[in-house]
């Protein structure tokens, strides 16, 4: 099975992120008192150090759920504008250079598939982005 199967659901950090993301006060403490927060949630020294160092590879190898790893980075760097030029993705380029380079190379050769029902009269209308009301 895939990488996600490697996660250790019982790690305290895997529980902590759930609560921090949902609570503005905890998100603020993340910035000002990470060590105290980690202690309250019962993180091991290894968990805390990997978290403090924002070490993507170590977090992955110790069993932090992979979905939470970029969420952890966003708690440090902000959640906006998370394109592939962001600090979060740069951390992945450093942690997994071969995998990331391979994906970025493949992106140069991908091609789209346009369904027949969008190609009426050989032309496709381009609507604007929906407006919320």
């Amino acid at each position, binding site marked *: *099975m*895939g*990488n*996600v*199967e490697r*996660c250790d*659901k019982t790690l305290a950090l*895997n*529980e902590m*992120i*759930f*609560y921090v*993301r*949902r609570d*503005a006060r905890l*998100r603020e403490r993340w910035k000002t008192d990470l060590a105290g927060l980690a202690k309250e949630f019962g993180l091991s020294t290894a968990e805390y150090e990997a978290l403090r160092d924002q070490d993507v590879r170590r977090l*992955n190898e110790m069993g932090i*759920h*992979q*979905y*939470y*790893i*970029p*969420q952890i980075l*966003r708690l440090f760097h*902000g*959640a*906006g*504008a*998370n*394109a*592939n*030029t962001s600090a979060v*993705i740069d951390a*992945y380029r450093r942690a*997994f250079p071969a*995998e*990331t380079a391979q*994906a*970025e190379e*493949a*992106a140069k050769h*991908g*091609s*789209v*598939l*346009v*369904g027949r*029902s*969008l190609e009426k009269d050989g032309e*496709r*209308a*381009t*609507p*604007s*982005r*929906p*407006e*919320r*009301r």
Partner: protein
Amino acid sequence: MARIVAAMAMTHGPGLTGWFDAAPKEYQELTLAATAEMRRRLEAARPDVIVAFSNDHLLNWPINNTPEYTVGIGDTHVGPADWYDEWLAMATKYRIPGHPALAKYLVSEGARRRLALAYLRQMQFDDGFSVPMHYLNPAGHIPLVPVAMNCTVPPIPTPARAYEVGGLFRDMLRQWSGPERIAILATGGLSHEPGGPRYLYVDEEFDRWFLELLAKGDHAAILREVTLERMEAAGSGGTAELLAWMAALAFTTGPADVLAYMPAVAWRTGTGMVVWNDVEN
């Protein structure tokens, strides 16, 4: 009696709203065209309610307790959750009416059919529901019953199980005593590996193969070929969001109309939009 009037599926990647402009122009235009076509067909079906299936990205339940399925039974659904405002570039919250009577019926009727459905009065919403609602229900005028799924915390359910549960939902919805016209929406996928070592990886070969199977419409072949192992190989922890599509598949017969596909590394997910031509009633 209630009727199923539409079934469709689309990717919900946060880049589709959060960093839309980062993808090639061709991808942006195709996404807008395909979602506009989905919206046109959705509105043409005149649904009274959308029942939507999507992965819960560890937002509503902590990792020590992740139900397989959770139904949102609230009067009103407000999203996105605060943490997702900035990520999804949604500065203002959306409000979509729920359908508490139908949602509560599903929870109770599910129990009678040996299907354990958790429920929440105030479900929180990440990209899974927020992105498709942005494109398909932007005014929030079609009521929503959200069904959040576990597609990412081991043990991840199998495609066969998702199809089985989709069938139970289909049977329960058809037996709902109200006159509602019900649209089914599945969101998630296609290939991606959120937060894994292959975070930027998109498996175009898998995605096209999967969509081709949907276009052929042979359910037995889909269930035989599209295993959880195959999904995981195409992007661990993310591609299995296609379990939502498997649940929707149980509402359909025959071929799906594949509107569009993009191997969108810029959005970090294979991106596709599908409408099924025929639904089971």
